[in-house]
Structures are given as C-alpha cells and as structure tokens.
C-alpha cells in the first residue's frame, strides 16, 4: 500500500510508453492496450476507496520523499476526503472515455491513446499532490495533452479553441506560480524552513492585509479561469464545442473540477482571511454565473454548446457551496463536483453518440427521436433529469446541500441561485422536448440506429452512480465529512489568528 498513489498516478504513463512501442499499424491492439491500462488503473485505484478511513480527516496513503532538497521540494502524495472522490471519478471515467472514442476518433489512434493516458497521469497527479511545486508541475503538464486533444482531434474551429484554452489557463496559472513563490519565501522568512509542503504551509498564519489579498487573488484567478467562473468563462464554450467527445467529457468531468478543487485545497486553508474577505464577491460572481449560464444555455441552437454553458451554471453552484464555508455547503460542493462530472459527462457522451450518427448537433435538425431510438431517448431523459436536479437522482442531492449551506450565510444569494435550478429545467427539458418528442421532422433521422452494446457499456456504469448518489449519497458524503469539518475549523481558527495579529487592513 505504500506506493499505492504513485502506482495509480503513473500506471497510465507506463501504458503510454507501452503504446508508444507498439507498431502504428496495429490499431486494434493499441486500443485494447490503452483500454486495459485504464481499467487496470481503475481497479488499482479501488483500494483508495475501500481502504480509506472515512472517520479520519488526515491525509491517507501518504508518500513523501525528497526531490529537490536545496529548495525544500518533496514528492509528497496523499488523499483526504476532499480529493478521494475526484481521484476515483477520474479513474472511473477514463475507460469509459476510451470506449466511447472507439469509433468516433478516426485518425491517429496511437497518438490519441498516448495523449489520453498522459492526461490521466496529469489529472490524477493534481488531485494527489501535496507539495505546491509538485502540484504545479502536474497542473501545467496536464495542459499540453488537453491542448493536443482539442487541437488535433477537435472540430472545424479546433485550433482557435485549443490556443484560447491554453493561453487562458497558462496566463492564470503563471500568476499563481508567482504567488506560490511569494508564499514560499514569506513562510521561509518567518519560520526559517523553506518548503513547498502543503500541510506545513497550511499551518502557517500569513499576516492579513494586502499581501494575503493579492496572493489569494493570484490563486483565485487561476482557479476561477479553470472552473470557469463568470467572467472568466469565455474559453469554455469554444473548447467544449470543438473538443472531441472524450475531450469534452474530460474537460467537464475532471478539468473544471481542478478549479473548484484548487479553491478548496489551496485558497481556503492558505488564505483564510482573504477568503472570508472576498467571499461576498465570489458569492456574487457565482450567482451571476448560475443565472447567466442558464440563460445563455436556453437560447443555444447547438446541443453541445447548451451543455457547455450549463457547466458554467452548475459550477457556479459548486463554488457557492464551497465559499459558504458551512459543512453542508462544502459537502454539497464536493458531491456536486462528482455529480456534475457524471451528469454532464453523460450528456456530452450522448451528444457525441448522436453526433456520430447524424453529424449534426443542432437542435433544429432533430425531433421525434423517441419514436426512432427509444432506448437512447430514455437514457437521455434520465441524464437530463439528473442534470437539472430531480429528486432521486444525483444532482438534487448536491444542489440541495449547497443551497442549504448558502442559505445560512446569504439568503438573497441562495434564493437567486435557486432560480438557476428552475432555468436548468427550462433549458434542458425544452431542448429534450424539441429533440425527442413530437413528429420525426427530418428524413435523415428515420434511419438512426439505437444504442449499440458498446454504448450501453459506456452509459450504464455512469447511470448506476447517478441513481446511487441520488438514492443513498451517504456512501460518498460520509467520506468527505471529517475532512470538511477539519477544513472549516482550520479556516476559522487561522482567520481568527490573523485578526488577532492586529494588522490593519
């Protein structure tokens, strides 16, 4: 167990090397090797769930070794209740994504497999790294595979979308790099131990005031771009729409979570006072994002774009929950990260399936699909309902907890955010109605085939968890609660300690 997290993180890289050595002509073997690698990674990652001690708030499966001793950089991995579900979400989705790309990715499967596997390592690394330097390495390194996935296997406007994606995220994260360095030297100067170790830095009480505010903002902008929060969201529709299905799902399910995870893991514990100081602003931006994302979704003619904008709205809920700094809000936020990964991931998968058949994503091109492909339409309905928060499915649990948390802090924000759920029903159900109900409007749609066994295999595991979380969320929320409580206690005690230092703002 000592090397469990290293094994999980770097198994995909090993698979990528293996794929690299395979001859290009053997496409079938390439696909299978990549798929088996991700399945093995998922299986290996299961102990992270089963051997996880849900009553402890500490980091578990910790590994720590010196890496660059002169700088105090360590190779420090570990998971706690905040990251464990995200690690599992990532390893769970990857095999499904490769399976969903089986026929939809038509060229350069070898490169595609390598890129996806390297991307998996990067994403897992972000979630398990407990050293700021190591975290930053994974955070940046992961951009390149994503950039290639959008740019090489994407739609017609892919190059623009890929460049926009990477420049946006790079600009944000480079500012975070400066902030990391400032934090490092401030901590070093104050304590005489120079380290990038997150648990150590998180115990350090940074003086309040301008410095902490600026550091918080540098981190927050990097994460806000990734989430993306209004008004940093403009890269998202382009990237989502142009990316291939697997890329869109990864973006929605995992990459966006890195932003919210970053807020939770870094902004709150490192800069508690600034977090409290800026919380009202973040609340405001979240609520704007929730409502704006929903409104813009409503008028989209393209299903994929509609789902993309709905992400802005859903992630607004997550940030709202996190910055409510209440146990309910935080647990809801974490579970909603997973929910959004499942629901929106499934939406993108299904949009991809219909696109593969019809080569169109325009709502106007469809109609009456229920009559032609009932199984697809039925599953699509379940996924839409889960996304809009129908009780009994997963989305409801997360959004309810978030609103519960937000209501204790800011009633107006909670009330306004609730309208986001109503609008979600509007845009999703209206879209569903136009696509699946009514008469078959286009002759091309009459010949569509229903779900293939491979597609069932992709969707059923996701649906299983959509229902599971909706019916019995405790399986998952119980793991997060101790860490959430500990985080809130830490933020509040540190914020008090900062105030007690009596430094005028």
């Amino acid at each position, binding site marked *: 167990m000592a090397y469990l997290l290293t094994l999980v993180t770097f198994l995909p890289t090993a698979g990528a090397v293996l794929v690299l050595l395979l001859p290009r002509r053997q496409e079938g073997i390439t696909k299978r090797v990549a798929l088996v690698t991700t399945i093995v990674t998922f299986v290996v990652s299961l102990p992270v769930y089963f051997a996880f001690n849900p009553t402890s708030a500490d980091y578990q499966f910790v590994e720590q070794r010196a890496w660059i001793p*002169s700088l105090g950089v360590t190779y420090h991995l570990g998971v706690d209740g905040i990251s464990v579900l995200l690690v599992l979400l990532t390893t769970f989705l990857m095999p499904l994504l490769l399976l969903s790309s089986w026929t939809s990715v038509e060229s350069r499967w070898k490169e595609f497999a390598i890129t996806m596997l390297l991307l998996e390592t990067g994403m897992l690394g972000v979630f398990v790294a407990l050293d700021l330097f190591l975290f930053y390495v994974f955070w940046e390194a992961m951009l390149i595979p994503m950039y290639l996935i959008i740019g090489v296997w994407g739609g017609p406007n892919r190059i623009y979308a890929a460049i926009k994606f990477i420049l946006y995220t790079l600009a944000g994260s480079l500012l975070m790099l400066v902030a990391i360095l400032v934090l490092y030297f401030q901590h070093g100067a104050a304590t005489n131990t120079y380290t990038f170790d997150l648990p150590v830095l998180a115990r350090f009480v940074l003086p309040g005031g301008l410095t902490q505010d600026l550091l918080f903002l540098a981190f927050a902008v990097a994460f806000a771009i990734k989430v993306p929060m209004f008004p940093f969201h403009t890269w998202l529709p382009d990237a989502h729409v142009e990316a291939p299905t697997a890329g869109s799902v990864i973006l929605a399910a995992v990459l966006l979570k890195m932003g919210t995870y970053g807020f939770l893991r870094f902004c709150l514990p490192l800069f508690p006072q600034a977090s409290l100081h800026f919380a009202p602003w973040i609340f405001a931006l979240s609520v704007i994002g929730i409502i704006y994302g929903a409104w813009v979704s409503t008028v989209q003619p393209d299903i994929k774009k509609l789902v993309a904008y709905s992400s802005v709205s859903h992630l607004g809920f997550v940030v709202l929950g996190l910055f409510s700094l209440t146990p309910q809000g935080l647990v809801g936020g974490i579970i909603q990260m997973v929910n959004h990964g499942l629901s929106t991931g499934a939406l993108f998968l299904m949009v991809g399936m219909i696109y593969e058949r019809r080569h169109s994503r325009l709502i106007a091109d469809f109609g009456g699909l229920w009559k032609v492909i009932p199984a697809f339409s039925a599953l699509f309905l379940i996924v839409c309902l889960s996304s809009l928060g129908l009780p009994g499915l997963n989305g409801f649990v997360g959004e309810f907890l978030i609103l519960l948390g937000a209501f204790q802090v800011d009633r107006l924000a909670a009330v306004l955010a609730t309208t986001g759920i109503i609008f979600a029903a509007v845009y999703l159900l209206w879209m569903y109605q136009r696509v699946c109900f009514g008469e078959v409007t286009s002759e091309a749609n009459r010949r569509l085939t229903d779900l293939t066994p491979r597609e069932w295999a992709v969707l059923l595991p996701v649906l299983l968890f959509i229902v599971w979380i909706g019916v019995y969320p405790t399986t998952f929320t119980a793991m997060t609660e101790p860490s959430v409580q500990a985080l809130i206690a830490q933020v509040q005690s540190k914020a008090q300690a900062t105030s007690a230092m009596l430094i005028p703002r």
Partner: protein
Amino acid sequence: MNPPLVLPPVDLRPILPMLVLAVTAGLVLVLDLVPPRDRKDHLGFISALGVVATLVVTYWMTFATGGAELRAFRGMVVLDGYALFFNIVIGYATGLVLLLSMDYMRREGVESGEFYILVLLSALGMMLMASAGDLIIVFLGLETMSISLYVLAGFFRTRLEAGEASMKYFLIGAFASGFFLYGIALVFGATGSTNLDRIANAVTAGAGKDPMLAIGLGLLLVGFGFKISSVPFHMWAPDVYEGAPTSVAAFIATGSKAAAFAALLRVLLTAVRGAPVDWPMLLWVVAALTMTVGNVVALAQLNLKRMLAYSSIAHVGYMLVGVVAGGPLGNGSVLFYLLVYTFTTAGAFGAILVLERAGQEAVRLEDFGGLATRHPLVAVALSIFLLSLIGIPPTAGFVGKFYLFGAAVKTGYVWLAVIGVLNSAAAAYYYLRLIVYMYMREPEGAPTLMPPSLSGALALVVALWGVVQLGVAPGPLFDLAQAAVLPLLR
C-alpha cells in the same frame, strides 16, 4: 656576468580545458592539409572528441579541485568553480553545434576543415572570457570568440543573406568592442588597474565615487549588452541568425551568450560590487524591456530562425531578472538557466536544421505543416524543446524559470517576476503556433524531408537528455551552479 634568466614557474592547470581545445584545433588544422582532402567527416569527429575531452577535463577538475581557485599569469586567468561551470555550458554548446554541423554543412555544400577550427577557436575565446581575471583578458576572449563567429556567420559565402549577416555582425561587433575598450580605459583611469580584484580594492578605497568609473562601467555594460543582445542593442540578432548557418546561429545564441554572461557577472560581482552605482535598477528596466520586446516581436515572425532569434532576446531578459535579483540564488539561477537554455535552444535549432524541403532549409512555419505525421520523432523532439522554451513542466525550461523568478520574488522584485510570467504566457503563443503546424495541420506542397544524419540525431538525443534530466532532477546541477557563484559573492 648576467644573472641567469629565471622564468617564473607557470602553472598550466588553470588553462587546461582551453589547452585541450587549442591542441584539438591545431590538430584539426594540420589534418585538414593531409589526405583524405575530399572528405571532412573525420575532422568533425576529431573536433567533437576534443570537446568531449575538454568536458571530461572540466568535470574532473570540478571534482578534483572542489571548485577551489587556481590562478595563473599574475591573476589574469582564474579557474574557479565559476569558470568550470561555464566551461561545462560552453562545452555542451560547442559539442552540440559540432555534431549538428557535420552532415548539415556537407548538405549545404560548404563543408570544410576551417569550419571546425573556427568553432573550436571561438569556444576557446568563450572559455577564456569565463576564466578572465582581468579586463584585458575579457577583451582578448571576446575578440577571439567574436572574430571566429564573424567568419562563421558568413559561411554560406554565395548567399546574399550570409554576407549581410556576417557584415552586420562584424560592424556591430566592432562597435561593441570599441565601447568595451573605451570602458576598460575609463575604468583603468578611475582605478589604476585592469585586474578585477585590484579594481575592487580601488573601488572600496574610494575610487567608486569617481564619475569616470560610472561612465566606464556604463560603456562596459553597453559592450556586454551587444553581445548578449539585450534591448536596445538587439537589432543585429535576427538578421545574423537568419543569414548564418543554422548551427552557427545556435552557437551564437548559446555559447556566445553564456560567455558574455560569464564575464558580465564576474565584472559586476567582483570588480564593481562596492561602486555606488545602482545597476540593479538599470538592469531591472533593461530586463523588462528585453523580454517584452523580444516576445512581442517574435509573435510576428514566420521565419523560424528569426523567431528563435527574438525568442533568444526574450530569454536574455529572463536571465537578466536573475542578475537583478542577485545573491547566490539569483546568480546561481542565471548559470543554471544558461545551461538549460543551451540544451533547449541548441535542440530547437537542431531539430530545424535536420529537415529540408525542396532542397532548401526548412525554416518557414509552413514547412512544418503536418510534420507529426511524416517525422513523428523529430516533431516530438521539437515539441519538447518548444515546451521547455515556454517553461512547461516537467521540462528543464520550467525549472530554470522557476529558479529565476523565485530569486526575483525572494529579493522583493515581485513585479519583475510578474512581468516575466506574463511574458512567458504571451510567448507561449508563438511557440505553440509551431506545434499547431506540426500536429494540427496537414502537409501541403513539397514534402519536408529528413536526410539521414547520425551525428544530428545524436545531438538531438543529447539535447533531449539535457532538457529532461535537468527538468526532472535539477538538484545536483543547480547546487553546482549555486556553489560556483558563492565565492564571487564573498
């Protein structure tokens, strides 16, 4: 009866690495005259072996002396950990350039023995600059290096651009030398010596207040500014890089810059440390301008050699950030970055020069369309070099920038670090554009070919090894770099 002439014992150890290079150059010079006269491959290999021997000697001396200072010729030449570190940088630069040149120069039809000799002699000048304990030796090294490079830059004799490159480089280089020499004269006038240690003593003793010293230092900085191509003395770089053979452009970008930085840092850190001139403030502005101008203009370049020229200007800006920050961390990170930059840039130029299209060098952006499908390995290698130039982990470029900006933050130059990272983000655009061409576009027109070249492939492998190794395990060499500057800061 006259007393017997007593020659002072000369310790040759401080110039041992340079001696190896000089002997190799002499050997190649002789071998060039004997058969086989029609093939020059063996000369290239002998030169490369000489460079390897120089590197071995350098490494050996680093561990044998532990970086202790050796002096010769009345303190005119100093071989300390600092000089040895630069010998490593220059050695790698020279070795990579030689390997890259062998098949390339034959392909271009200008293979000759002089080429290798000039590269070796130029490297000799560079190492001399790194070991200089006296302004006169700095100048001597500078001229040895530059004159060889002027010839090398014009090696494609029949091409118009080569003439322009050589002429421009020579004229501007001569200007720079003039400024530099005048600076030496004024410093000598103010302090009464050209020896760096004696200048330092005079400066602390009161000569620092002499305005002549400030003017002399300013002129020296102008001379160095030309050589490292910092704004506003950067105008020559793109034209020279474009007209010079690509491998020579790589040499100018890596070796000559490393040598100029070596002398610049030594002068700033030892000779004029006590002078009441606020040179960090001056260099702050120069650093910010250099990286911004380099990156902004690079955005508009469609010729890769010109693009890399502006990119090299921008990287000088980043390195100046380390100079401004100062201290063991700041100066150590400059040394480390020069090593990183040598592998990265030599690799990038190398990946370009191993390709050709329709009998021409593939230097235009569109020559790289769809390269990933035709030559996947070169495309991957070039991409890794470009990612290192952007500073994406886990490449060496990231660690190098991390140290540089870290040093700036440590000494309170946070805003300079912010300017630096914003520049890095802007620079990502033009490096990524090349990756876009290689991976996201289809090949058009005449195919881009890769003539087989074993030495070229070897050079790329060495450069890749450097970029990856310094990115994943930067600790040992960074500690070496930091240990190298420590004695200078005492």
